């Protein structure tokens, strides 16, 4: 689990800012992702239209989620899949532990949903060995860390750090050649695939019409995870359902372009049920674990419902000036960045996450890049309005009460302006401001006064 807590976001961020290697890695990766995304989006003439269409499909799916989920389940079951409903993380983990209790080795592909449920800890506690097979995930599993980006979990690591990690953990010869490092990981992982009894994956889309689950990736490890072991367990948030197979056309254009700037992911796996004649493809047993874990609560609210439209592409992270500076770990949450600051307090409650919606300058870059047009700044503002009156400091609440009085009374406004001019000569008004920036002094005459003259 991320050792950092959202409650200490400010301190976490300061530590991140002091980490020169981290900032170098972030600057390189976020700008590269950002530029590639932009090029890929500009390469499609109807990008805006696709975004609108994608959002409309998501809205429709979410509005009738009950119906589409039932349709998805009955079609998946008709193809031989076994579907399990999990109310929360603990329930999902216990279902998966039960299913894989006889497994010696589990291979796992990248899945933020299983990060959300802290599945690996549950499996390890149950005595099952689980191996992450996505290169980035494998790196952070070796380093005993958590993903710091939704699609690039080891984005915070430099090539040098990975080289040192491999030497220390795998005993392989020291090299910082990327091709060689990848080869080391591949060789180690191939053996694990061969030995694995169970493969666990996430899900990008669940198609109601056909009961198909769709997973996209670049490394081929998902293809192996879902086809080599006898049993495949797919963990899917309930919001991942799309109504029709044809809807995938829109999403499979938007998702890879938004995530990495690719026109298409290298692998797109469409898994419809278990191995059956005549194709004899797929696992012998397929279990789909449908996870709620707070999602139905979000569904109930007309403003926040749109957060469930998220495709987990990570584009908002790359575009966010805050994320670009501090990376993902500082947020102290499974989901970092702008979308993390929106969904974490909603999924986990605001008690320990109240700082996250304030971790934004509200610049709107996230909204601009979001492939499904989630109005993240609006959601942040909405969450702030729920947090401030309950969790704001007494000083802050009082200050805004006074501010309200002053700003609705021309007399008080004038008086505080004059008071401010005097006070600023005696005491520094804002230390937080003046640490890095000079403060513009209050004018000797306000515009109000100048207008008279």
């Amino acid at each position, binding site marked *: 689990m991320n050792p950092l807590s959202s409650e200490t976001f*400010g301190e976490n*961020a*300061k530590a991140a*800012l002091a980490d020169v290697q981290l900032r170098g890695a972030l600057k390189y990766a976020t700008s590269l992702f950002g530029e590639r995304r932009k090029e890929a989006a500009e390469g499609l003439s109807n990008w805006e239209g696709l975004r609108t269409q994608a959002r409309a499909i998501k809205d429709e799916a979410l509005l009738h989620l009950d119906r589409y989920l039932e349709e998805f389940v009955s079609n998946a079951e008709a193809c031989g899949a076994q579907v399990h409903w999990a109310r929360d993380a603990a329930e999902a983990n216990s279902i998966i532990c039960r299913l894989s209790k006889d497994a010696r080795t589990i291979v796992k592909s990248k899945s933020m949903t299983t990060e959300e449920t802290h599945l690996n800890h549950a499996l390890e506690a149950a005595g099952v060995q689980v191996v992450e097979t996505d290169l980035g995930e494998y790196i952070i599993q070796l380093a005993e860390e958590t993903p710091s980006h939704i699609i690039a979990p080891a984005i915070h690591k430099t090539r040098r750090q990975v080289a040192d990690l491999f030497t220390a953990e795998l005993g392989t010869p020291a090299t910082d050649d990327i091709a060689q490092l990848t080869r080391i990981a591949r060789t180690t992982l191939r053996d694990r695939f061969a030995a694995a009894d169970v493969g666990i994956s996430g899900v990008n889309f669940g198609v109601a019409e056909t009961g198909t689950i769709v997973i996209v990736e670049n490394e081929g490890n998902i293809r192996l995870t879902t086809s080599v072991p006898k049993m495949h367990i797919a963990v899917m948030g309930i919001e991942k359902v799309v109504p029709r197979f044809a809807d995938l056309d829109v999403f499979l254009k938007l998702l890879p372009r938004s995530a990495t700037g690719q026109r298409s992911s290298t692998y797109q796996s469409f898994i419809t049920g278990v191995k059956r004649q005549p194709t004899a493809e797929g696992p012998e047993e397929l279990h789909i674990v449908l996870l709620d874990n707070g999602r139905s609560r979000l569904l109930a609210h007309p403003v926040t419902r749109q957060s469930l439209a998220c495709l987990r592409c990570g584009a908002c992270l790359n575009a966010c*000036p*805050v994320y*670009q*500076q*501090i990376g993902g770990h500082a947020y102290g949450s499974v989901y970092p960045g702008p979308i993390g600051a929106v969904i974490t307090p909603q999924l986990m409650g605001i008690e320990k996450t109240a700082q996250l*919606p*304030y*971790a*934004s*300058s*509200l*610049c*709107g*870059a996230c*909204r*601009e890049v979001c492939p499904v047009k989630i109005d993240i700044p*609006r959601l942040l*503002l909405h*969450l*702030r*309005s*729920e*947090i*401030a*009156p309950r969790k*704001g400091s007494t000083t*802050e609440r009082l200050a*805004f*009460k006074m*501010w*309200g009085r*002053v*700003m*609705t009374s*021309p007399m008080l*406004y004038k008086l505080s*302006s004059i008071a*401010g001019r005097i006070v600023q000569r005696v005491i520094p008004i*804002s230390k*937080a*401001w003046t*640490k*890095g*920036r*000079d*403060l*513009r*002094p*209050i*004018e000797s*005459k*306000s*515009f*109000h006064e*100048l*207008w008279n003259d």
Partner: protein
Amino acid sequence: MKVSLFVTCLVDQLWTSIGLSSVEVLRRVGCEVEFDKRQTCCAQPAFNTGYRDEARQVARRFISIFEESKADAIVSPSGSCTAMVHHYPELFADDPEWLERAQKVAAKTHELSSFLIRILKVEDVGASWNGRLTWHDACHGLRDLNIKSEPRTLIRNVRGAEFVELEHADACCGFGGTFSVKYPEISVAILDQKIEAIDRAGVQAVVSGDASCLMQIGGRLSRKGSKVRAMHLAELLASK
């Protein structure tokens, strides 16, 4: 055209020359400018920090004052405060009477550069300023009000001014209202990207449409001993 100036509290208290320059420019292009002295703030600090009751209180007052005005338009030298007025309907979603009043006032409220270009169709205000300068897109003007070409058009028509595009002109300066004092270290780290881009541009002035961003950028430039001036678009356009 008769225009009611919403000068914003920041300009009123900290950067009055922006207000004076706005009046100068508006008059030069033939507007009659009025200033309602009861005005204070647009309510943005409370709205953005999450204090909606206080924000509503201040927004109601703004609406009451400006709906009395006989002016054809309310004009403000700030994309951010103008965007806030455009957000008012969200504050009164459950209050049909105020919602309607909020919508009417919002529809009349324009940011200075977009007012000049979109409403008055004026692209050249007859300004002149000698030197090399660049433009920083303030986030709310850019992304809430879609103001992008307007200031550039106006700047390109300033005699003597050599305009260069800033690298990542649309990247945030890190101000973000209370964000800048809640998380000053992050705010300044973001700001330093902007400062580096300004350095690379080799300009005498960085121009923008919001006093808040300019305080942020200008405050860092001054701390670093830079000679580059942070200048509001209104100040540039008023130059002769």
